[in-house]
Structure formats: structure tokens, C-alpha cells
């Protein structure tokens, strides 16, 4: 069927346009009437069917994305209790001003930022290096790719439970391994920095392979003659990586940085399950914004303030997005025409 339609393709372009012009004053035979009706239906169909096709997505998005987003903003201006969520008492910006003076909020913001940096920067650097290695001609290259993507199939919950055990103080595998080198047992969960590092490694473990594949795909799309001319100019492998691969990957790197930032801002499951409870450690040393939101809403029953936290996360993302956009333009302009 497909080929039959394909052979009919050429007349399609010319055929559709002239028809309305021909149908002027002269008498209409029944056949022409039929044709005209058909062309009306055809035009209605082509005009409205695209909206029909995108309607389900936008309806669901409006109902479960846009409306809740706006309503969260509305709720953040009220006092709302988890116990009777429909009783909303107007308080203006009180929830936001409370947040500004709330040390736990600033602590969570700081933790989110630190964990985000420790989790994202090494992860993307490793992914870049691994993608470079996978880009060589390899035996079993597909095996390596699948193996490195496997952590992506492991859920946050399962991965965190496993890592919490690996990071155990007395019998954890990691302390045992470090002990081989004479390092004393580390209280990973209790320390401020150790806990942040431990939580970050869960993120790194789950996402490095995924980002590796994205970089690898982008590397394979780099035109080969760029490398050819670089090597004719005498560039070493390392120089080619720095001067050809990295500039060609700039849009992809920006993309992964944006996606990772969004992910880091919402970090929730790892700190929730790494310890016990919603506080993110005894001293809140690894409580993130996402976790604080959950604690505020579902442990302290304060949905209004939880909404305010959610909206501050959103504003934060917008600010970060603008900063990235600004940098992307700055870099794009300074290096000339390279499409970003």
C-alpha cells in the first residue's frame, strides 16, 4: 500500500492547488458538487485535525500541569492545613516572608546546591570521558553501553536502599574497602559532608551512563572531516578532543547541564531513604528543598508553606535558566557562528 501511495505522490503537489480556481461560475454537474463537498470536508479536516491530534496532550497538561502550577501559587498565599485542605485562609505573602527567615529553608537550599554540584559536575565530566572512550572502535561496545545504562533502570528507592547499606558504618562494603587502605570506619550518614557525598554518589551512579550515551550520540554526529583536517594540522588525540569534540558538543553539554540542574533541584528520594525520617539526617545535613517541601506538607501538615517552597523552587529554576541562557548566548557570540 505504501508504494502505491508513493507513486501517486507527484500529482499531489500540483493537483490540490488549481482545483478551487477552476470551480467558478459555470454549471455544476453532480459530480463536481460531490467533488466540492469532498474538498470542503478535506479542508475542514486538514484545518482542524492537527488541533485534534495535539488536544489530548494539552488537555492533560492543562489539567495536571498548568492548573496545579497556578493553583500552587494561589495556595502559597493562604494558610492551608493538610487535615482540611479545602479551608484556605488568605495570608498574603506571609508564607514567603516566613521562608526568608527560616533557617531550615536556607539550609535546604544550601544542601540542594552543594549536593547538586557534587552530583552533577563529576558525573558529566566522567560521562564525557566515557563517551570519548566508547567512541573508539571497540569489541563488545554494545555490551559496555547496556551495562553502563543498567543503573538507570534501577529505581531511586531500590538504589538508595542498597547504597545506604553499602555506606553502613560498621559492616558497610565501602568502609570495609577503605579499611584495606588503613582508613578508619567513616560515619557516612552522620557527617555533614560525608552524607552529602554519599547521597551524591547515588545520583552519579544512576545517571552517568545515561549522560554518557547522550554525549556518545552527539560525538558520532560530529563530521569526520573536522577530525581529518585537525590531524593534518598535527593535532594530537587530546588536542582533537579539546578543540574539535568539545566545541562540537557544546549544545549537547548545555542540554545535559540544564537537565541535570532541573533534576538536582528536585532531589527527593535519595535523601528521604538514605536515612530515616523526613528531616534529612539528625542535623538536617542532607535535607534538600524537595525533602523540606515534603516535610512541611506531610509531616508538619502545612500545605500553604509547602506551596511557597514549591514556588521558590520554580523561581529558582527560572533564575538558573536565565543565567544559563545568558551564558549560552555569551559563549555563542564569542565563538562566532557555531549553531547552538
Amino acid at each position, binding site marked *: *500500500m505504501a508504494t502505491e*501511495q508513493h507513486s501517486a*505522490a507527484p*500529482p*499531489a503537489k500540483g493537483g490540490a492547488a488549481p482545483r478551487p480556481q477552476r470551480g467558478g461560475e459555470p454549471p455544476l454537474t453532480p459530480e463536481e458538487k460531490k467533488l466540492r463537498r469532498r474538498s470542503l470536508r478535506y479542508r475542514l479536516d486538514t484545518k482542524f485535525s492537527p488541533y485534534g*491530534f*495535539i488536544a*489530548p*496532550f494539552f488537555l492533560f*497538561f492543562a489539567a495536571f*500541569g498548568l492548573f*496545579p*502550577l497556578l*493553583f*500552587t501559587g494561589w*495556595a502559597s498565599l493562604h494558610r*492551608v492545613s*493538610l487535615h482540611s485542605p479545602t479551608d484556605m485562609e488568605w495570608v498574603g505573602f506571609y508564607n514567603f516572608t516566613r521562608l526568608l527567615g527560616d533557617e531550615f529553608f536556607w539550609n535546604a537550599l544550601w544542601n540542594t546546591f552543594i549536593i547538586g554540584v557534587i552530583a552533577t559536575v563529576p558525573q558529566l565530566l566522567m560521562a564525557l570521558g566515557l563517551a570519548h572512550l566508547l567512541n*573508539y*572502535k571497540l569489541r563488545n561496545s*554494545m555490551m559496555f*553501553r547496556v551495562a*553502563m545504562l*543498567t*543503573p*538507570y*533502570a*534501577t*529505581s531511586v*528507592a531500590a538504589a*538508595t*536502599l*542498597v*547504597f545506604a*547499606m*553499602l555506606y553502613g558504618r560498621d*559492616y558497610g562494603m565501602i568502609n*570495609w574497602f577503605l579499611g584495606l587502605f588503613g582508613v578508619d570506619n567513616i560515619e557516612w550518614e552522620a557527617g555533614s559532608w560525608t552524607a552529602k557525598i554519599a547521597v551524591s554518589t547515588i545520583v552519579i*551512579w544512576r545517571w552517568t551512563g*545515561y549522560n554518557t*550515551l547522550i554525549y556518545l*550520540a552527539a560525538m*558520532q*554526529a560530529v563530521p*569526520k572531516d573536522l*577530525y581529518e583536517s*585537525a*590531524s*593534518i594540522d598535527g593535532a594530537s*588525540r587530546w588536542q582533537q578532543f579539546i578543540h574539535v569534540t568539545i566545541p562540537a558538543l557544546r549544545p549537547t553539554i548545555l542540554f545535559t547541564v540544564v537537565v541535570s540542574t532541573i533534576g538536582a533541584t*528536585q532531589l*527527593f528520594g535519595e535523601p*528521604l*531513604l538514605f536515612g530515616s525520617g523526613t528531616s534529612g539526617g539528625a542535623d538536617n545535613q542532607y535535607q534538600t528543598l*524537595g525533602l523540606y517541601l515534603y516535610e512541611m506538607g*506531610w509531616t508538619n501538615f502545612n*500545605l500553604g508553606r*509547602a506551596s511557597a*517552597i514549591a514556588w521558590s523552587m*520554580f523561581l529558582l529554576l527560572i533564575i538558573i535558566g536565565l543565567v544559563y541562557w545568558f551564558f549560552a548566548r555569551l559563549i555563542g557570540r564569542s565563538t562566532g557562528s557555531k549553531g547552538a
Partner: protein
Amino acid sequence: MSISSETATRPPGSAPAARPDTPDGGAPSRRRRIRAGGAGRQMHAGWLTYVILIIFTIGSLFPLVWTMFAASSTNTRLAQTPPPFWFGDDLWNNLDQAWNTANMGTALINTVFVAGTITLSTVLFATLAGFAFAKLQFRAKNVLLMLVIGTMMVPPQLSVVPLYMAIAELQWTDRLQAVILPMMVSAFGVFFMRQYLVQALPTELVEAARVDGANSLRVVWHVVFPVARPAMAVLGMLTFVMAWNEFFWPIIALTQQNPTVQVALTGLGRGYVPDQGVIMAGALLGTLPLLIVFAIFGKQIVGGIMHGAIKG
């Protein structure tokens, strides 16, 4: 025409240039260096590359393998000083306990149903919208596409409070529709299908079907779906993995009475289960279905992520 055919010879010309390194006839070193560099990705990996890749492969797989060792161990065995590096004898016992204390049976059935429904609807709606954005003309198309991309940036935290109010009002707590409905479409899916169909679906094919008198639905059914099938399969697998692992909203909307796998695992991890082996057995049960999917379709999933990335 003759001019364009001359320029067209260049791309094929560059491919053979990369090929000759198979019959390596002791070429002079200068030539070889140029060829090796010029081939870019064709360069052969040295042993160090393999060593590094193998270390990272072990790093990726070890926590999962260790989960199996731990899931088959008792607490005493896990407390040995060189930790266990092999299977113990208590796998069935631990699985049995995890199954009963964490409601794992219900959780698995629920998750298959939830993730399956989400996958079907996401793929269907993403293909329809992706087709419209890729091949059809309509007003405000570019603005709407930007909106789709923009929605990918909105974190789910921004909708939990109103959604919670809604399910409290509707008394949908612990009902599966509470976790299915908000996840029925995905902006990523729309974008993914659009990127695929822009390249894979020839516009003439759609126009030809139109000329033959097919209406839009018939075009979708007879032209778009057959062409889109490989991408639909990949999007389906990616969506299934994401839906299976969905965490934040299910934790809020469901309880241990009627959990998904992630909710059950959370209960297991935060409850007072004294046996570490049981917790690991639960983690194993909740992960194994996806690992099986990965073992079978890993290659396609890798290909799908890489394909989606090129235009990302």
C-alpha cells in the same frame, strides 16, 4: 544536475578513506597517523581504554550484583568482616518475608497496571501530537511546540499540593487512578516522536494518502503508525521504565494498603524491618522486572536514548 552529482560524490568519498585500515599493509607511519586521526570514531581502542571501561562496567553492575548477595544472606552473614562476595542460602526465606511484610505481590501487580496504562496512553498521545508538530501546518504551531518543551522544565513538586487536595476531595487516596491520570502524557514523549517523524516520515507519503482520499485518522492509522512503530516501541520502553520508577507523587497519593513497588520499598526501608537481607530482597523484587526488560531490549533502549539525544 551534473553539478550536484559532483558534490554528491564527496560524502561517499570520505567513507572509503576510513575503511582501508583493515588490510593494513605496513603503510608508512605518516600516512597511518593521518588515517588514524581522520577516521575519528574509527580509531581502535588501546588496552587502557578497555581497563577503564571495564572498571566502570563493574562499578555500574556491582551494586546490583551485591543486592543479590545481600538478599540471600542473614544479618549475621552480612556482618562478617570481609563482606559476603557470593550468594548465601536464605534467598527464598528473605524473598518470602519481603513479599509478606511489604505487600510486594500487590505492589508488583499494581505497578505493572499503572506503568502499562501510562505507557500506552503516553505513546499514543505523543505519536499523535508528534505527528502534528512534525508534518502538519496549523496556527501557533511553533509557539505551542515551545510550550511543550518549556513544560519539561516544570518540576513535579509544583503540582503535588493541588493534586493532593483534589484526591482528598475525591477520596482517591490509595486508588490507582490517582497516580495514573497525572502521568498520562509526557512532553518528552511528544518531543521525541516529533524529532523522529520529522526525519522518518516523508511528507509526500502523507500527501499521497491525502490525495487518495484518506482522512486524517486513516492517514494516522495507515501511514504514521507503521512508520513510527520503532520509535513508539522505544518511547514505550523508556516510559515504562520512568513510570515504574515514579517516586514523588505515588509516595504522597498511595499508602502501604495499596502500594506501587516504589511505595512498598519506601515502607520497607523506613519501617522497622530488622533484617537487612529482607530489605535487599525487596529491592531485588522491585528491580528484577526492569532488569529483565533491560536484558532483552537493552540494545533498543540504548539506541532510543542515543537517537533522542542527537537533536536534543
